[in-house]
C-alpha cells in the first residue's frame, strides 16, 4: 500500500462511496510536491482543482483590504482537504495557499473529475465536501467568538485608558484654576494704579507667574517670574515661588527691597534643588509718588512708557535665580509720572515665531508698547494680544505668554 492509499483510508471525503467509486477517484489523483514557500494556488486565480494534504503544512493567506499585504488566516495539517470551494462553485480562489513546509499533496483535476466521475458520485462528493465545510465553519465561528471576546477586552482597556486620560485632564484643569488664583485678582484696588494682564500658558498650566502684592497703605510689589520649562513641574515651582515671596514679605516687618528679595531667592532656590532655574523682575512702587525700586535676575527688560518719549528699558542686573555663586544683584530707581506705564513680560512674547520661523522679537514689542499711549491698560492688553496673534497665526506659541501692564494715574 503506497502513501496515497494509506492516506485515503477512511477519509470523510469518501463516506457513502462504494469501492468502485473510491477506486476510480484514487486512479485520478496525482501526487504533487511543493517546496517551502511555494504557492499552490493564488487568490483570484481561476482554477477548480481539489487537493488532499498528505504531508507537510500549508498556510492560507488572504490579501488585506489595501491589497498591498497578506495575512495568514489559517494553517492546514495533513489529512485536510483544500480548494474545495472553487471545486464546488467555480468562483475564483478566495485565498492563496502556500507550502509552509516541504509538502506532498494529492490533486484531483477538475477536468478529470468532470469527465470521468458520474453525476451520482459527484453528488455524493459534493455532499461530503459540504459536511467538511460545515465543520470548518463551526470552528471558524468559535474562533470568531473568541476574537469578539478579545475585542471586548481591548475595548475595555481602551475605555480604561480614556477614563485615565480624562482624570488627568481634570486634575490638570483643577491645577490650572488654582494657578489662576495666584494671578492678581481683577478686583484688587490700589491707590493711583490701573493694571491689566495677559496670561496664556502654553499647556493647561504654565511656568510663568505674575503677581501684585500690596505691602502697606502706600507700597505694593509687582513681579513677574519665568521658570525654565512649561510643564507641570514648572507650574508647581511657580506656586512655591509665590508662596516664598509672600511669606518673606509677611515675616519681615520692614519692607524688603527688590535686592533683598533676589538675594533670598538665590539662597532658597539653587539650581540643583529642582534642576530648574527662573528669571524674575521685581519692583516696589510708592503709590503716592510713582517712585519705584527694581531689580531683575536674568529677566527680559521691563519697559517704561512715558508720554512722548522713547521707551525706557529696565535691564537685568543679576544672573538668573539658581546660580547664586555668580550672583551680584543691584537695584535701579525710576519714577512714574501720571499717565506713565510699565510693562513686565516673559520671553514667550518675543520668542513667538510665525510660520516662516521669524521671531516676534524685542524691537517689534518695544514699538508696539510705545504706541500704547492715551489708551487704557485693558485696551493695551487687547492690542498686544491681537498683534501677537496676527503676527504668528497660524503658528502657535511654544512657550507661556505673560504680560503685566501697570498705569500710574494721579
Amino acid at each position, binding site marked *: 500500500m503506497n502513501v496515497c492509499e494509506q492516506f485515503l483510508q477512511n477519509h470523510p471525503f469518501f463516506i457513502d462511496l462504494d469501492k468502485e467509486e473510491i477506486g476510480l477517484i484514487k486512479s485520478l489523483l496525482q501526487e504533487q510536491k511543493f517546496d517551502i514557500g511555494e504557492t499552490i494556488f493564488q487568490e483570484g486565480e481561476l482554477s477548480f482543482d481539489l487537493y488532499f494534504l498528505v504531508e507537510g503544512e500549508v498556510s492560507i493567506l488572504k490579501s488585506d483590504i489595501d491589497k498591498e499585504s497578506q495575512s495568514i488566516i489559517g494553517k492546514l495539517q495533513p489529512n485536510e482537504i483544500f480548494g474545495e470551494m472553487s471545486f464546488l462553485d467555480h468562483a475564483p480562489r478566495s485565498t492563496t495557499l502556500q507550502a509552509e513546509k516541504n509538502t506532498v499533496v494529492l490533486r484531483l483535476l477538475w477536468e478529470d473529475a468532470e469527465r470521468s466521475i458520474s453525476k451520482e458520485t459527484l453528488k455524493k462528493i459534493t455532499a461530503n465536501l459540504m459536511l467538511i465545510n460545515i465543520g470548518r465553519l463551526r470552528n471558524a465561528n468559535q474562533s470568531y467568538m473568541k476574537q469578539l471576546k478579545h475585542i471586548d477586552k481591548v475595548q475595555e482597556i481602551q475605555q480604561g485608558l480614556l477614563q485615565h486620560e480624562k482624570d488627568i485632564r481634570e486634575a490638570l484643569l483643577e491645577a490650572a484654576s488654582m494657578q489662576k488664583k495666584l494671578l492678581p485678582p481683577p478686583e484688587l484696588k490700589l491707590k493711583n494704579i490701573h493694571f491689566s494682564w495677559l496670561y496664556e500658558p502654553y499647556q493647561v498650566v504654565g*511656568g510663568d507667574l505674575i503677581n501684585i502684592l500690596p505691602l502697606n497703605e502706600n507700597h505694593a510689589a509687582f513681579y513677574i517670574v*519665568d521658570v*525654565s*520649562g*512649561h*510643564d507641570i513641574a514648572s507650574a508647581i515651582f511657580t506656586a512655591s515661588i509665590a508662596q516664598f515671596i509672600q511669606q518673606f514679605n509677611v515675616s519681615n516687618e520692614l519692607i524688603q527691597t527688590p535686592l533683598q528679595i533676589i538675594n533670598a531667592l538665590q539662597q532658597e532656590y539653587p*539650581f*540643583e534643588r529642582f*534642576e*530648574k*532655574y527662573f*528669571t524674575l523682575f521685581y519692583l516696589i512702587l510708592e503709590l503716592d509718588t510713582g517712585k519705584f525700586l527694581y531689580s531683575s*535676575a*536674568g529677566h*527680559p*527688560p521691563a519697559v517704561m512708557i512715558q508720554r512722548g518719549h522713547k521707551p525706557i528699558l529696565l535691564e*537685568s*542686573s*543679576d*544672573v*538668573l535665580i*539658581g*546660580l547664586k555663586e*555668580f550672583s551680584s544683584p543691584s537695584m535701579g530707581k525710576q519714577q512714574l509720572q501720571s499717565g506713565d506705564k510699565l510693562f513686565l513680560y516673559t*520671553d514667550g512674547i518675543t*520668542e513667538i515665531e510665525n510660520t516662516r520661523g521669524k521671531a516676534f522679537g524685542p524691537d517689534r514689542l518695544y514699538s508696539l508698547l510705545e504706541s500704547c499711549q492715551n489708551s487704557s491698560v485693558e485696551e493695551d492688553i487687547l492690542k498686544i494680544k491681537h498683534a501677537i496673534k496676527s503676527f504668528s497665526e497660524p503658528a502657535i506659541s*511654544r*512657550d507661556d505668554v505673560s504680560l503685566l501692564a501697570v498705569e500710574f494715574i494721579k
Partner: protein
Amino acid sequence: MEISSEVKNESLIIKPNAQRIDSSVSSEFKTKVLDLLNKPYKILLIDFSEIEFIDSSALGSLISILKSANLQNASLAICGAKFQIVNLFKLTRLNKVFIVFEDVDEAEKFFMNKK
C-alpha cells in the same frame, strides 16, 4: 538629536548638529553631553555654530552641564554662538557664567596661553 564629539589633548569638543535646542530635545542634549563627560577632561568646549535658537529648557541643560563640569574642575566654554544666542546669554546674565568665544580655534588658543 545628533552630537559629534572630539577629544584633543585634554579638551573635549562637543558639537550638537541641530538648529534648535528646545524642550523637545533639551533633556536628550543634556544626557548625551553628560555621558560624554565621563572622563576627567580639563576643558569642555561646546560648539554652537549650527544653533539658531535655544529656549529656557536648553539654558537649563547648559547649566546642568556647567555644574557637572565644575564638579570635575573642568572649564566650560561656548564657541561660535550666533548673535541672538549671545544676546540671550547677556539678557540672562549668563555671559558672566559661560565663557563665550568666536569659534573653537579661538577658545583653544586662549586655553593654550593660559597653561
